[in-house]
């Protein structure tokens, strides 16, 4: 877009100024809640509950490590952290492999039954059995209250397959042709040429899957009963809504005892914030570095319109 050495009218400058201001305000609204949570987590419970006039700028009067100490000393939070990590570490590679295994054959225009397989897959994007049928299936498969339920039901996303497939379709056929002429067989072509070339798109998909696993909470809520298998997000959710309604939810007696021992008050706002930050900070941290892969990913291989 042509940028201006051009003469700017007063209207133009006003417009420019106001758009920058609006954007800055928008960015402030995004940053502010995090600062707020950080402030709450580093103060005492008493102050967190009180109406602090300093609260517009989140700077607590009394600094305290109480909340963080409580969180560190609460086994159930660590256990759920482990569960979240488990699903990321186990689920992501499996999903990547499964997705790729689906996308590669579908990218071959001469594949037997190609339209049929694609149709089978795409149909699932538009219609599903629903909550209860899925629930009944999970029970019937013996996945209820098993960690595998985090990994298997969501293993392959048709949407991801389509994106990878489009990426593969854009790989010039000459690459494969010349490999064939050199005598390579199907398997060799796949492993030594196509897979290495697919790294960018797989990296992007991997990031999406990782974020998906990290943020997942609903499956843990409905398919898992054992508190020792719950995911971090679900524990956080219970903490938040316990405060709201006084129900124990899936927290169980154990977690509340841990928390009460540490803080001595019900419910601990500061601990809530600390937990929220534990869940959020890894994302915040990794985000600036990985952000451009996410953005690139939408355009790589995605069919427009």
């Amino acid at each position, binding site marked *: *877009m*042509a*940028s201006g050495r051009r003469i700017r*009218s007063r*209207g133009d400058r006003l*417009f420019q100024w106001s758009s920058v201001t609006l*954007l800055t305000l928008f960015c402030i609204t*995004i940053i502010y809640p*995090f600062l*707020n*949570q950080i402030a709450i987590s580093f103060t005492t419970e008493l102050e967190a509950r009180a*109406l*602090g006039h300093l*609260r*517009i700028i989140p700077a607590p009067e009394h600094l305290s490590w109480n909340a963080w100490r409580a969180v560190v000393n609460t086994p159930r939070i660590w256990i759920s952290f482990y569960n979240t990590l488990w699903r990321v570490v186990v689920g992501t590679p499996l999903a990547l492999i*499964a997705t790729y*295994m*689906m996308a*590669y*054959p*579908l990218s*071959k225009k*001469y*594949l*037997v039954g190609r339209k049929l*397989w694609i149709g*089978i897959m795409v149909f*699932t994007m538009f*219609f599903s*059995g*629903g*909550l*209860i049928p*899925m629930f*009944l*299936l999970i029970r019937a498969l013996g996945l209820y209250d098993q960690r595998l339920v985090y990994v298997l039901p969501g293993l*392959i996303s*048709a949407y991801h397959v389509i994106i990878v497939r489009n990426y593969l379709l854009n790989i010039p056929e000459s690459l494969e*042709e010349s490999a064939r*002429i050199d005598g390579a067989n199907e398997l060799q072509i796949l492993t030594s040429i196509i897979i290495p070339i697919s790294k960018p798109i797989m990296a992007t998909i991997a990031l999406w899957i990782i*974020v998906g696993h*990290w*943020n997942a*909470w*609903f499956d843990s809520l409905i398919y898992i009963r054992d508190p020792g298998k719950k995911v971090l*997000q679900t524990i*956080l959710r219970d903490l*938040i*809504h316990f405060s*709201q*309604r006084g129900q124990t939810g899936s927290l169980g007696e154990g977690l509340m005892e841990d928390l009460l021992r540490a803080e001595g008050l019900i419910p601990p*706002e500061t601990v*809530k914030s600390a937990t929220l930050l534990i*869940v959020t900070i890894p994302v915040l941290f990794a*985000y*600036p570095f990985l*952000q451009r892969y996410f953005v690139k990913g*939408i*355009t790589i291989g995605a069919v427009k*319109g």
Partner: protein
Amino acid sequence: MIIPEQAATRIEPERQSLAPRGSLRSRIRQQRLLLVLLIPGLLFFAIFHYAPLYGIIVAFKDYIPPLGIVGSPWVGLRNFERIFRLGFGLQVIRNTLVISGLKLLFVFPAPIILAILINEIRRKRTKRIIQTISYLPHFLSWVIVAGMVIELLSPSRGLYGVIARAFDWELTVPMADTRYFRSILVVSDIWKSAGWGSILYLAAIAGIDTDQYEAAVVDGASRFRQILHITLPGILPVASILFIFQVSDILEVGFDQVFNLMNPAVFEVADVLDTYIYRIGLADGDFGYSTAINLSRNLVALVLLLAANWISRKVTQYGLW
């Protein structure tokens, strides 16, 4: 000694490219690696996407857990009738449509406006920083965002309380107030999704012919008029497609968001189809009724989607397929 060119011409091209040649059986044999690779994926879809379809018959039964699906008695369409009889069903549908409508009105334009504003930034570094910040909420779960929102809107502890007291407003609990809850849904959705949504529109804006802008400058048009007459029409195709599909998605309100923000005090306006399906089904255990609503909803959504695709093709020559 064989000269390479001679060797090359002796190879038959068809066999090299595995193009359709020969009987189905021989093609299957040729492509056996590909087909084998496909098996786990197809198995997955069969088990986790097609098998549950069988469970849909629960909608037509009075499901009694010990009897299982097969053993439970048929009740035909009784579960479907209940949607309209009790009054709750209609209220839930109303809530869904109202909230979706509000989102169409306010959340849909947000990424467009944001994209236009971001596009106005001259300095690359500032632009990148603002963009990066704006996408951030997209990567947070609604559990997290709801947690932050609830905290901020607390009358006793949060920013809302501070501001309300400063301006001497009537203190209420916004999260539990049916007058404000829908606004909270809309605003928080904008907060979370506008940044990420703007990516697409920024790409569309980047694709607009710059000559048009230069011509407009020569004609003396202000920046604002340029945007009005060049930028907006330029993104109209993309926006139209997205709008059409967004409308067809009207029954989809965003379960995660509503579920994490709602509480019993605001059920009257907050309970939407998906949360109702969940509560009736898993919390109250009425499998039949829940599945009936779910099925109805999915069918209507499918019809709307097909309609949207048809309309989109007619209007813009683009569709999902």
